[in-house]
């Protein structure tokens, strides 16, 4: 009986240049249902942080409520974390980010936490372009309360009780595009080859990076007539392969420039899309919206990087905050002496 995972790791587990192994980014053993897509996303986050050589103590995990929002316990056990209020993760993340801009912020939310109770918060955090990666682990149902249809359940999708969903599903990627998100991607928990580079890109992106990750609920929404099952998603997604090449990575292979499209990031990293999207320019959010709609109408799922605007100002830039994180400013920086106070008062007369 093992609710515990052995401490033994592969003795030849490789290390990244900071000396961390993949195990350094692990968390507690998952208590979600066996086979939950969310666990696979946790593993992808671990792999992405390992490959980006992030320091665990410089990462903060933020979440709301739901199965998805439990997952930060299961990765990055040595990082900061805040499991907040249902749908209110964006506010808490905004506060944390304003206080300490030096951390890397990973928000994990679900379709309930984002598309229902947290919709208002979601739209506004996008609007402010807060520097964070926001992942929605989207399974189209409320798994924690026994699998009711969520707001992202597709019209016509059948739930476990056999009832067809009469409402159309919200498309979170489209919503994010419309709200002005500077980075939007969609992926599938069962496709780590695509998901890991997307997470790495999202973590590197300066501004709000949104990933809608379809993550099957094995217990309530993985049957034949579900549109968020492993089988259905695998069959109906198009896979546009991509690579994320971090600025510190060695370039190992050359590609024919005609077959790829590259997106440069602020720090010199870049995203390389293979089999480039001939139909639209990835920096144009409206083109992306059209493309997503086109796929949705065909009952297909467009995955990969949908839109990236690497020039858009992040919240800290807009507010022109100090270079030193606010949390690190001491009394001498924050409390003016009496002479300086007098000058201020004088200026207000």
């Amino acid at each position, binding site marked *: *009986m*093992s*609710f*515990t*995972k*052995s*401490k*033994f*790791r*592969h*003795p*030849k*587990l*490789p290390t990244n240049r900071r000396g961390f192994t*993949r195990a350094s980014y692990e968390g507690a*053993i*998952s208590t979600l*249902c*066996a*086979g*939950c*897509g969310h*666990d*696979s996303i*946790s*593993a992808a986050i671990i792999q992405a942080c390992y490959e980006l050589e992030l320091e665990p103590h410089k990462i903060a995990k933020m979440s709301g409520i739901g199965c998805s929002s439990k997952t930060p316990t299961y990765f990055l056990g040595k990082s900061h974390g805040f499991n907040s209020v249902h749908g209110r993760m964006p506010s808490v993340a905004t506060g944390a980010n304003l206080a300490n801009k030096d951390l890397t912020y990973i928000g994990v939310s679900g379709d309930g936490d984002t598309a229902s109770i947290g919709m208002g918060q979601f739209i506004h955090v996008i609007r402010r372009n807060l520097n964070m990666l926001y992942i929605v682990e989207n399974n189209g149902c409320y798994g924690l309360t026994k699998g009711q249809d969520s707001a992202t359940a597709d019209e016509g999708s059948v739930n476990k009780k056999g009832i067809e969903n009469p409402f159309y599903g919200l498309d979170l990627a489209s919503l994010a595009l419309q709200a002005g998100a500077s980075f939007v991607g969609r992926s599938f*928990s*069962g496709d*780590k080859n695509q998901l890991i580079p997307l997470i790495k890109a999202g973590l590197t992106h300066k501004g709000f990076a949104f990933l809608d990750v379809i993550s*099957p609920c*094995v217990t309530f929404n*993985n049957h034949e007539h579900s549109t968020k099952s*492993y*089988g259905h998603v*695998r069959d109906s997604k198009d896979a546009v392969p991509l690579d994320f090449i971090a600025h510190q990575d060695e370039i190992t292979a050359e590609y024919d420039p005609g077959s790829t499209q590259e997106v440069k990031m602020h720090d010199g990293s870049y995203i390389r899309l293979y089999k480039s999207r001939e139909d639209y320019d990835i920096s144009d959010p409206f083109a992306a919206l059209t493309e997503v709609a086109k796929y949705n109408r065909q009952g297909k799922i467009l995955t990969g990087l949908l839109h990236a605007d690497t020039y858009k100002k992040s919240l800290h830039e807009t507010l022109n905050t100090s270079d030193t994180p606010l949390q690190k400013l001491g009394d001498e920086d924050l409390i003016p002496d009496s002479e300086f106070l007098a000058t201020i008062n004088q200026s207000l007369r």
Partner: protein
Amino acid sequence: MNPTNIRDPEYFHKVVDCQYACPAHTPVPEYIRLIAAQRYTDAYMVNWESNVFPGILGRTCDRPCEPACRRGRVEDKPVAICRLKRVAADHKEDITDRLPEIPKIKNGKRVALIGGGPASLTVARDLMPLGYEVDLYDNQPGGGGMMRSQIPSFRLPEDVLSEEVNLILDMGVNTFFNTHVSSMREILDKGYDAVFVGTGAPKGMDLNIPGRDDVALQAHIGIEWLANVAFDHTDKIGEKVIVIGGGNTAMDCCRTARRLGGQDVKVVVRSEFSKMKASPWEIEDAQHEDIPIFNNHVPLEFVHDEGKLQGMRFEKVEVQYEDGKRKLVPLDEPPVFFECDEVLIAIGQNNTFSWIERDLGIEFGKWDMPVVDQVTFQSTNPKVFFGGDAAFGPANVITAVAHGHQAAISIHKHIQGEDVKDRPAPGVNLVSQKMGIHEWSYDSEVSHDERYLVPLLDKEVALKDRKLEVELGYDGKTAYEEAQRCLNCDIQTVFTTELCIECDACMDVCPTDCINFIENEEEVVLRDKLRVPAYNDDQDLYVSTALPSKLVMVKDEDVCLHCGLCAERCPTGAWDMQKFLYSVTKAGKSNETPLAIG
């Protein structure tokens, strides 16, 4: 790579590293679990069936299983398999009613066993229950062969030895002890239906250097001297003793010398420390008894004063390698002199077959060794079989046991008129261990304890009496803790492609990154591309058939903890933990259990 054929019994057998490495293929994890469950008698019988001498081997085995133990690849030290075996023997209850029944009416066939060591005794054990009449000849006063004459009592108490030897002799073996067989022709003339030669490698090698003949009374051949000690012909030795040689016999010699009055006992070895043939634990035991080891010293001469030994001179050498060949190159230093009163020479042992006439159809080959089939142990005279050290030169007890089992099969087949080359298939059983979502019928949780030390008798006391056993053995509680260190490698991870939905849960949860979902490639490429590259080529890759996504599941067996997490996190039961029991089929048994794999 082609999908792995898990229906081949050898695939999962190889995963059970200890059992695979054991010459007799004793199902190690099976009996270790029984020890943990305090079912000592059951654990003993699992051993007895397979290796015949659990109490003896639990103290003296060369333990090929331990260097193979997976635990040694996961952390520092392997499970103390050998000493756990001893626990089963120490704590067992009466086993009389579990012993095979010996037919009162014999089958009319007679078999002679030459030599009363582990190989011959194993043949007797396998043939007696089949109704054979077995005659055993040995020149010693009791059964056991080198286990009696060469293994000192402080490692193997006489009562432990006799108990297990007698279990076999008491089946009704006709014993001819103190009987030196000097002619194979005479034996064959007695009309036996088969003859088994298990005479070991009884001739100790001598050190032919200047002065040897002059000190004949003060320099002894190690195994002869040990036998004299064992049979109470020798009970003391000089204060200063040099033991020449770096093998296990040398270790037994020096430790015995310490108990017979040797105060300043040293071991001198030609080779470097790392190349010594003795098992590391036997070297440790000698060092623990304050016996220094001098390596890279080549004996030059015995120094004596008109026949009275003064000491020995050695040349110091350096080890060099030329084209992979080892060379001992003398250092430009004056020879080293060590004073001594007596010398024990333990530099190897040889077979001797001068008693086998060369016109009996028994062909001899290289180094005057008989030509023996590696599988059937039959010589070129179809009636004559060889086993143990007599077959292919000096090895160890457990190898002799393994030979004995196979030779018994051949002897039985030969006498029944069957083809000896037609070997019986192993017994194989594969059964799911699932009891609930998080429950298995084995302790799947992995213990992180380090290897437990076996308590020793106080050194002062131990050195006073050569018959006092030095190792005290684990008590029940420590045995349990040590048993829990076993990773249960026989509980196999069995994968069913058709059930897999490719959710990656197994891959994500595996503590040691064994599982991969990856595009299929040829083996070398695949090994390189795994989550952790699999560069231990001794360990297989378990490859599935293609999944719906066209990927394949590839599991590197190397450091799998058999913790069952892959199967616990699998939502569809595509992974299952199944207990694999592999047993070597013995003489007169056929294996009709079909291999049941889901």
